[in-house]
């Protein structure tokens, strides 16, 4: 009986003025129930989908048997493997180029001040506030009107545009709490500005660059809205392929494919948390 939910009982070392008040057992039970219901709502559907992927017959829960055959089927679907590879390449390119743009921009903005800084950072953050569907629609219209074929460069640029605010914001936030003297110290002991940037500033910014890379990768990898407007046949990404498949077929293969994606996302999330700590600070 760990009593994980009744922190009011646990003395908090940080301030001695906590008034210890013992919550009634009914109250504690209510908290556990809320927590359980909340996570049931949030995560149970994914659990159901994972369970269905082991069902030999149809997309039905609970499964009427156990099979791994749908996982083997994945390897027989060149369309899906091609789409997964396309998604991975696109997301990796978006992550590297987008984060690089974001880091440069944040460094560039560091010495600006006043309304100019406000205007430029406002521009850099604005894709967050404009629905992505409108950005994609706009780009689609331009290439259609100009008679350009949909191609991977426009797709890549669009992915960078809608994800750019994340690296900019992460790196700018870290630069705000950054000890300017470190770079100045490097300069006074004879480093060139370039050396100071490469040897001092960038390594120190790793704590915001790594999460930016991962977040942009995930956002691009999962993106549907932008890709559906701008992807050509060679760059059908995995979300598009999944949706196209669902239009005609509905069998546990698609649950198996989804399970692979769920597991991959989960692993990435926990690895990322180990690396940089995504959640609140551990006490």
């Amino acid at each position, binding site marked *: 009986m760990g*009593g*994980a*939910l009744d*922190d*009011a009982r646990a003395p908090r070392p940080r*301030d001695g*003025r*906590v*008034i210890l*008040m013992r*919550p009634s057992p009914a109250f504690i039970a209510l*908290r556990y129930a*809320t927590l359980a219901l*909340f*996570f049931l*709502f949030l*995560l149970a*559907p*994914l659990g*159901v989908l994972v369970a269905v992927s082991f069902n030999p017959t149809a*997309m039905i*829960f609970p499964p009427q048997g156990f099979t791994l055959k749908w996982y083997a089927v994945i390897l027989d679907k060149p369309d899906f493997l091609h789409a997964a590879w396309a998604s991975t390449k696109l997301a990796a390119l978006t992550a590297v180029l987008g984060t*690089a*743009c974001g880091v*440069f*921009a944040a*460094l560039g903005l560091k*010495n600006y001040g006043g309304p100019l800084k406000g205007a430029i950072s406002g*521009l*850099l953050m*604005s894709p967050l*506030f*404009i*629905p992505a*569907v*409108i*950005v994609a629609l*706009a*780009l*689609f*219209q331009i290439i259609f009107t100009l008679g350009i074929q949909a191609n991977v460069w*426009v797709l890549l640029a669009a992915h*960078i*545009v809608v994800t750019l605010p994340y690296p*900019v914001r992460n790196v700018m936030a870290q630069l705000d709490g950054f000890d300017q003297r470190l770079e100045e110290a490097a300069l006074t002991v004879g480093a060139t500005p370039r050396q100071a940037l490469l040897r001092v500033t960038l390594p120190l910014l790793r704590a915001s660059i790594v999460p930016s890379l991962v977040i942009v990768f*995930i956002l691009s990898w*999962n993106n549907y*809205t932008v890709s559906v407007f701008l992807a050509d046949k060679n760059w059908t990404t*995995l979300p598009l392929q999944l*949706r196209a498949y669902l239009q005609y077929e509905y069998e546990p293969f698609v649950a198996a494919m989804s399970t692979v*994606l*769920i597991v991959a*996302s*989960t692993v990435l999330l*926990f690895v990322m*948390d180990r690396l940089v*700590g995504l*959640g*609140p600070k*551990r006490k």
Partner: protein
Amino acid sequence: MIGRSKTLLLVPSVSILAAFFVVPLIWVVGLSFMSSDGTGKLVTDFTLGNYTRFLTDAYYLDALLWRTVRLAAIATLFSVVIGYFGALAIVRSAPSWQPWLILLVMLPLWVNLVVRTLSLMVVLGRTGPVNQFLVWTGIADRPIPLLFNETAVLIGMVQVAVPFVVMSIYGVLQSIPRQLEHAAMTVGATPLSAFRRVTLPLSMPGILAGSVLAFGINVESFVVPILLGGGRVRFMSVAAYETATVSNNLPFAATIGVILLVVTMAMLALYQWAVRSMTRARPVLATAG
């Protein structure tokens, strides 16, 4: 010298945004004032025809715009209520649990939206667990259609928005000292009224931020109405997509996009106004939040 290189650092991001964001947006606004002849060719004369057509046709106004805004608003309301309970339950759990619980909240955000929507299709389907439960308990005597209607789309939108709401509210709740509520209880408030009079008002900034985030995500929903609405629940973003790619009526697609943009901007403005008037009305909140 350093000043110039600092400016050069801004060139990649600003130029990519200019070319692939600012110019296309201006283009789309301009295009919405043009028209298209029957064959899909562009007529570049200035016209308000697209807007008149949209705003006078009951189909576009009610079945499209109003439905999108209405469902997004209802979904936002549910997301905020569910997300608030979730955030509150997490913030009141043991400190050593909290990082793990927050990680679980973030998990769905990392999973592909098509996959998440598909999971709801299985759950809500004719033979899905929800229908099995309804039949088993006798609430319904045979499976009821839960998919491909507005309710399914609503459930999908709530599912998508809840993690964002929790993240917005959790941060604010965490910053509220527990002693405030305890103090209220020592002077005789019941736990419920202490929550209602102390914690709830102090967490307003998180609720507002979560609401605007949830509404922004819901109003541009694309995958959810396609998959869970099954083509029967038309949404602004889907209509813009179909008008552009299937009907090839680019000016009208642009008009739908611009109207969606205006709605989003109006909500953001409303949010800004709400935050400003709240901090003005209750100066205590501004310092406590």
